[in-house]
């Protein structure tokens, strides 16, 4: 590694650790790198890259998916989904905990951001579970652990970002993450079932007549159409991912205004404003990240990484293992979206050179990085759930550990067997 490259990487890591926003840390380290190498005439490129990095049609799916998710949240349709989840999953022992996971699978289909899941579902489930006698730490652990299913079940924002950064088809990626996402749901539900026997968790008391279930389903059907629209639109060849995002946002807008009359016009302005601000925070990282990865390109880093990986001669499983460890460590300290923007293209390229299917690698990377949301020191989903439950971080970590363990097992299975992720996209013809 050259001295100038070391300076670029060290100043970047130092600045983000000190707490500088990631976007500005990338830009500042590029400026430091330019200063140290004395190539002052590189400066205009640094600013140009910010704009050019965002200048992409595919990337437009990001604000549109965010808008669709925000619209759904503002439309107060959470209750309908919880009722529906109750109807299908509530009969099991440990009913409410099971419903918590089930709602994440359903609801995740709409927002696709793990944190959004905790903010809206956590507020419903954590108090309810505590009232039924679960410990606050367990309620928070189930909520946090199940929230990471969200980004795995389409539509997911992280798949949009991965696809546009690493040049992988977004539709194919969403198809690839679906089964691994459901498997995580199943294994977490299995764990709860075992715990429920052992600790004697209560069932959910509710009207389970066909009529009541029918009503709950009917109420949930309209919002559940959103993932259906996105998936059939994309996989059925009606729309590109960007267009699917736009149509989903428009659909959410129409049902919120017309059907539920739950959004007032002023609230609507707020939804657009919030979505714009949140999108801006992600897109500016993409822009500044373009400057950063350009600097890495000038230092010929991709070539270096590819050659290094090749020289290790690890083979398929070895490469998969090494990359998973790298991703796991990155995911523990940086949020998944940022890791993907920063390292997605680089790792994807190196993985492809090692003979790993880019679609399979993308699936594993998304799953892996989401696991990082459940680990210290930067498990944002843990923190968010703790904030609602007020149970203290240490008890929460202890309650989360079994969930983390089964999820990691599933990660190993998914990584070792490409068929799990590649089967569905294959069937769908990608």
């Amino acid at each position: 590694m050259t001295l100038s490259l070391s300076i670029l990487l060290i100043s970047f890591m130092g600045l983000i650790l000190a707490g500088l926003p990631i976007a500005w840390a990338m830009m500042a380290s590029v400026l430091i790198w330019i200063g140290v190498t004395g190539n002052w005439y590189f400066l205009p490129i640094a600013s140009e890259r910010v704009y050019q990095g965002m200048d992409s049609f595919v990337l437009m799916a990001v604000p549109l998916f965010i808008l669709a998710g925000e619209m759904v949240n503002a439309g107060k349709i959470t209750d309908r989904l919880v009722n529906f989840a109750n109807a299908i999953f509530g009969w099991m022992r440990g009913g409410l905990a099971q419903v918590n996971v089930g709602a994440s699978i359903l609801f995740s289909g709409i927002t696709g951001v793990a944190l959004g899941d905790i903010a809206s579902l956590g507020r419903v489930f954590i108090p309810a579970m505590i009232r039924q006698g679960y410990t606050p730490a367990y309620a928070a652990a189930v909520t946090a652990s199940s929230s990471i299913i969200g980004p795995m079940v389409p539509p997911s924002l992280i798949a949009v970002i991965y696809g546009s950064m690493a040049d992988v088809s977004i539709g194919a990626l969403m198809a690839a993450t679906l089964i691994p996402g459901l498997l995580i749901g199943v294994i977490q539900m299995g764990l709860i079932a075992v715990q429920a026997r052992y600790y004697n968790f209560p069932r959910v008391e509710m009207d389970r007549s066909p009529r009541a279930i029918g009503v709950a389903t009917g109420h949930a059907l309209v919002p559940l159409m959103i993932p259906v629209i996105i998936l059939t639109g994309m996989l059925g060849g009606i729309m590109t991912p960007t267009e699917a995002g736009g149509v989903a946002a428009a659909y959410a807008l129409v049902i919120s205004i017309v059907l539920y009359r739950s959004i007032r016009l002023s609230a609507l302005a707020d939804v657009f404003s919030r979505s714009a601000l949140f999108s801006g925070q992600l897109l500016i990282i993409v822009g500044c990240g373009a400057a950063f990865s350009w600097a890495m390109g000038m230092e010929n880093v991709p070539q270096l990484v590819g050659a290094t990986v090749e020289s290790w001669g690890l083979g398929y499983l070895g490469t998969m293992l090494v990359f998973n460890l790298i991703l796991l460590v990155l995911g523990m300290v940086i949020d998944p979206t940022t890791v993907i923007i920063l390292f997605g293209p680089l790792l994807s390229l190196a993985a492809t050179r090692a003979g790993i299917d880019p679609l399979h690698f993308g699936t594993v990377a998304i799953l892996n990085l989401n696991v990082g949301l459940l680990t210290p020191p930067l498990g944002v989903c843990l923190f968010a759930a703790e904030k609602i439950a007020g149970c203290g971080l240490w008890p929460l970590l202890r309650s989360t550990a079994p969930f983390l363990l089964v999820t990691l097992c599933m990660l190993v299975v998914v990584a070792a067997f490409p068929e799990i992720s590649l089967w569905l996209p294959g069937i769908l013809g990608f």
Partner: protein
Amino acid sequence: MNSMARIIIDLVDKGLRAIAALCLVILTVLVVFQVISRYGWGSVPLMTEETARYAMIWMALLAAAVGVRDAAHIRIDFVPTLLEAVAPKARRILEVLLDVISLTVFLTLIWFGVDTMMFAAGQTSDGMQIPLSYPYSILPISFFFASVFALLRIVAGDVRP
């Protein structure tokens, strides 16, 4: 800071938010229009995609400027949080230092944003055939406001609740 200045700053802040939101409205409408027009009359006007792209970039950069005022940008606040517990004063010093670094980044981006804009003046866009300096002008504009907000945080401790 006197109240007049505060009113102006708040007005600017509100305006930027509104324009960013408006860009998102335009973006959404254009993308939906693109689907409709492809199925409705088979063809998509050349400028649709391009205008939508520009709307997204404008939205993102304006939102990024507003994010400076909100202190909303994604960061790893592990060290600052740790400092808050053991040495609150050191944390405040660190935060000011970080704002100064941000400000330096923004000022550089204004300066070279203008340079980028001038350089792009000779290029025309594929769709609308307008000089590329128009869409590029958002670079210095956004980072100008970002600088103002960063400066306010440094000199007046201005952080929105």
